[in-house]
């Protein structure tokens, strides 16, 4: 296709100004009139609008944590170059963070009814929120294996609550009636919510990954088919060429033998 040339004065700048609607009224009217009669400008304008709409697909990832600035006095601005302190997990000692993680993990496993067994069929891992423990399991006394970690967990939970209560009381100077204690049911409910959310997210993520893999496999399959097709074509061509050569050679040999 032969592209026509547009010689409108200052055409590229005007096209951009028109595209972004940053053009004064007189120029807009004149350029509109020009566009209606200029195929090249009409096509280019449509193409650039298409580019702009495609660009909107590019969204940056949602920031997880960017900044956490806290009220700072003008004095500190003048004297310090340290970033303002963040109110976050960084305020909690490392051991407390680890303990909290272990606590959540332990409680999660407890709530999730995680059941690991080994029988003739091999290892079995079961989980389930709604699974009712069997009567046998209920009837059994606490096993020596499970008892120590439960005791540890309880003491850890108690210690953590004490620490957090102390920190909370210091930081906010709230009377002892503050909501520092949390019932087990509430704790379980919160952990369950967190785990539910996590599961939902993982399911969506898995589905996305699977869809991507399927798409990739299909694309690869298509590419392989095209490759195979090309290879077959090449083989057919070369086979035909070989046959022709052999035929010519046989003909030549026949001619030579007839002459002799």
């Amino acid at each position: 296709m032969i592209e026509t040339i547009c010689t409108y004065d200052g055409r590229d700048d005007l096209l951009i100004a028109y595209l972004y609607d940053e053009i004064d009224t007189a120029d807009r009217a004149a350029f509109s009139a020009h566009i209606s009669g200029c195929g090249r400008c009409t096509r280019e304008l449509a193409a650039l609008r298409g580019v702009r709409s495609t660009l909107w697909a590019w969204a940056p990832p949602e920031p997880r944590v960017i900044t956490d600035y806290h009220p700072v006095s003008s004095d500190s601005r003048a004297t310090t170059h340290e970033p303002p302190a963040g109110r976050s997990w960084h305020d909690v000692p490392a051991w407390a963070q680890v303990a909290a993680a272990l606590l959540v993990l332990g409680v999660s496993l407890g709530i999730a009814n995680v059941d690991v067994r080994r029988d003739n069929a091999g290892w079995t891992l079961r989980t389930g929120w709604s699974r009712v423990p069997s009567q046998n399991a209920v009837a059994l006394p606490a096993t020596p294996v499970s008892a120590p970690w439960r005791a540890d967990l309880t003491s850890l939970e108690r210690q953590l609550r004490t620490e957090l209560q102390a920190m909370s009381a210091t930081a906010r100077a709230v009377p002892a009636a503050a909501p520092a204690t949390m019932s087990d049911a509430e704790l379980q409910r919160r952990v369950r919510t967190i785990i539910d959310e996590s599961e939902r997210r993982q399911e969506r993520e898995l589905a996305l990954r699977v869809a991507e893999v399927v798409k990739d496999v299909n694309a690869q399959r298509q590419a392989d088919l095209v490759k195979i097709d090309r290879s077959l074509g090449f083989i057919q061509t070369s086979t035909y060429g070989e046959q022709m050569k052999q035929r010519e050679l046989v003909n030549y040999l026949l001619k030579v033998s007839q002459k002799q």
Partner: protein
Amino acid sequence: MFGSSRAEKVSAYSMTWSDEELVARSIGGDPDSFNQLVLRWERPIYALAYRVIGREEDARDVCQETFLRAFRALNGFRGQAKFSSWLYRIALNLCRDWVRRERRTPVVQAPDDLDALELSAVREPTTSIDDLVARRELTHIVERAMAKLPEDQRTAIILKEYHELTFQEIADLVGCPLSTVKTRLYQGLAVLRRELAKSES
């Protein structure tokens, strides 16, 4: 960090004070005003940094450093330009420094674990998996096309398309004539048009 109480405070401030007023109050010693400015502008600044340098972690660092520098220099801000333009300028300079320091062309690489998934979870819970995959592919295509652009064209397009600055604001920000901004936009879009057409084919 985006807790409800803070969000409520922000919205209350957002309704009440302009950027310039918050700057003045911050200089005057109001401890909360600068926080409101940060909360108001951190996402746009992060988005700018991410699109220019293309790495989430580094974009976050640039974003933090931008506000830190702004905070330190707040006393010197006289309101000749808009606060947002001033902030954009700091961020762009930091991005340029980053590109020079790393000595590499900014190539956007969306981290594997992010993104459309999380965005959709927050904004469009009904988006199908196919849509997400398609969107992610399109994102990669746009990223690759943008990576082909020279820095000046890329910056002009980012500021225009995603931050909706006027030609004059971009010219003031990057320090070039207004006509140069238009030329950069035209040339940049033309390159993108070619690159996107290649991807489609």
